[in-house]
């Protein structure tokens, strides 16, 4: 067990290093243009260019540049945006993170509950029209671009049907901090939560159903039936519990990616000032330091979350516990 944890830790450190190197290379070693110009922004003065070159050490070899960059990102945290008049990047991300976390946690709750319900019901009623209907719904959910679905949701709740009793409670676009007004926070986020959850409900319910159906052919499911257990107990305690192993590993990955900025499109459409929207704004201003910082932040988060999932895995699946 201890060895397993240590090895996992080593892997995590390695992947973290790999990601930082990858991101660094993408931003500063792509063949084509001078990274100085990219960081300084459009129409920068020669003085700014020179200052940037000095600050990031672009006249020195690549490993030194990499080290400088990492120092500015994680140690001194003084990476500043040139486009945005010297705004420090790291605190900006820290301010945006709670919004993203709020959005993703709510959506995750919705998608986990609904997809388990849908997947289990569909598997229990395999071959019936309920099964086919639920799976078709899931497939449609997977097929919708999230930013488009968000726009349609806005059209319905903010404009077309906003005056009816159904949607009159929906506040205008934007975010209300939880600490300021919990109820307002909830109201502002319900529609984004649902929109963000739709695709994942589709994916997870389909994966879960496929898993449960595959499991129903397993020997241990036959044993459970031969024991004289009720179908519900067989499906939930034996089937669903075994499927949870796959489910959790999938969930960890997606959750981490979303918190790390994967919810960008939803944040943009609903005007939520989270990490994703920050990236989007940086994108429109071509604010390279900010983008690089958000990408790095998200990657670090994803890697750490994956490590947590793997440790969770140890508790969920006794086979993994011994294999490592």
């Amino acid at each position, binding site marked *: 067990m201890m060895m397993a944890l240590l090895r996992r830790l080593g892997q995590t450190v390695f992947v973290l290093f790999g990601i930082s190197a990858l991101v660094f290379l993408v931003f500063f070693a792509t063949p084509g243009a001078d990274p100085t110009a990219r960081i300084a922004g459009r129409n920068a003065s020669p003085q700014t260019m020179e200052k940037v070159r000095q600050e990031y050490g672009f006249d020195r070899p690549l490993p030194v540049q990499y080290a400088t960059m990492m120092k500015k990102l994680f140690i001194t945290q003084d990476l500043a945006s040139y486009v945005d008049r010297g705004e420090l990047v790291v605190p900006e991300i820290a301010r945006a993170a709670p919004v993203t976390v709020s959005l993703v946690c709510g959506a995750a709750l919705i998608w986990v509950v609904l997809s388990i319900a849908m997947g289990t019901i569909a598997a229990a009623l395999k071959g019936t029209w309920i099964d086919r209907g639920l799976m078709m719904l899931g497939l449609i959910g997977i097929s919708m671009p999230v930013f488009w679905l968000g726009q349609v949701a806005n059209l319905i709740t903010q404009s077309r049907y906003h005056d009816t009793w159904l949607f009159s409670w929906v506040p205008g676009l934007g975010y209300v901090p939880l600490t300021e007004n919990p109820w307002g926070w909830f109201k502002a986020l319900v529609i984004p939560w649902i929109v963000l959850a739709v695709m994942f409900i589709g994916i997870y319910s389909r994966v879960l159903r496929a898993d449960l159906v595959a499991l129903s052919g397993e020997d*241990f499911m*036959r044993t459970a039936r*031969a*024991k004289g257990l009720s179908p519900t107990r067989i499906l939930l305690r034996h089937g669903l519990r075994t499927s949870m192993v796959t489910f959790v590993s999938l969930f960890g990955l997606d959750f981490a990616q979303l918190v790390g900025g994967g919810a960008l499109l939803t944040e943009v459409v609903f005007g939520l000032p989270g990490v994703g929207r920050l990236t989007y704004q940086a994108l429109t201003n071509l604010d390279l330091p900010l983008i690089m910082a958000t990408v790095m932040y998200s990657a670090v988060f994803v890697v750490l979350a994956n490590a947590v999932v793997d440790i969770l895995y140890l508790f969920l699946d006794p086979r993994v516990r*011994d294999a490592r």
Partner: protein
Amino acid sequence: MPAEIAPPMTAPLLDVRDLCVSFPSRGRMIPIVEHVSFTLGERDILGLVGESGSGKSVTAMALMGLIDSPGVQITGSALFRGQELVGMPQKQLRRLRGREIAMIFQDPMTAFTPVYTIGWQIDEQIRAHERLSRKQARARTVELLAEMGVPDPARTADRYPHQLSGGLRQRAMIAMALSCNPSLLIADEPTTALDVTVQAQILDLIRSLRSTYGSSVLLITHDMGVVAETCDTTLVLYSGRVAETGPTEVLFAHPGHPYTAALLASIPPLDGPRPHRLPAIAGAPPAPLERPAGCAFAPRCTYVHDTCLPAPPPPLVPTGYDPLAAPQDDATAQVSAAAPSTQPVQFAACVLPAEGTPLPPRLTYSELSAGDEADATGFPPSSFAAGEPH
């Protein structure tokens, strides 16, 4: 644990008559099991032998009501203590499963749910059928594991399936099957996935169950050796039909069906000159849809002739007699033209005996008993000596 009191001999524990199972495929019904009949008495061990695909597992699954593929057709009758199993509602079946009829499976590797401990899974079965607290159930579990010869049962109960060896897992499986003291145990190839040394231990365990637990066993296997060692009665299935049935020594000593004879011939002899090459049965069993109209074994049979080929398949005819057995109300027994003073106990679905050219006996009884503990099974030496009516 006290064994149940056996009812009078006239009502067998399990009476299967004309069991047919067909699965739908591409708009037609494929008969997998056709007109299988047998009876299983209290504390009997019946061996169901056949190649893979002969329908032996399907028969067992049908008895347990575990076949739930859409459109499957199960006809005939299977009386378990007078209760009809065929067509019994699932709710009622569920009460029988695990408590009255238990099953153990071929591969103990995959037969336990991987994410729970062995003990949890045995507790679960006990608590599904009896009102016991967790603690009481666990106490029974540990006791059962100990009786099955599991070392350190209390700790083993807390282990996960993958942490145990195949033999231990199969012992745990049997402990689980016996946890509610069932009167019938169906064992589907219980030793196939195990090492040879462990096989023998598990077979010993199964044989001892009838004295310690009073259980009858329906043992499904493809291994004639396992049958010879374990079973009182043998039923040979070929391509979904009964080829031959009878008391094990009678059938082994004097097979009435060419298929049985061929199967036995392919077992290496224990003593005597070593054959240069063991005879094998040429060809493969027919697919269910390509079954011949007449005898299913005809295409591979060395004795095949014109009367074997037309439909219907040859009926079971008596080939062996047991002078000491009580009279039976068996339909085939009355049909039989040759029933001198004794009642038939062995039947084969072959035209040869009726044509007056039965197969020659394979072994004399003395040869058989020399290599086997035949006395334990309770059949007197004369049981087949007189079994030559023609």
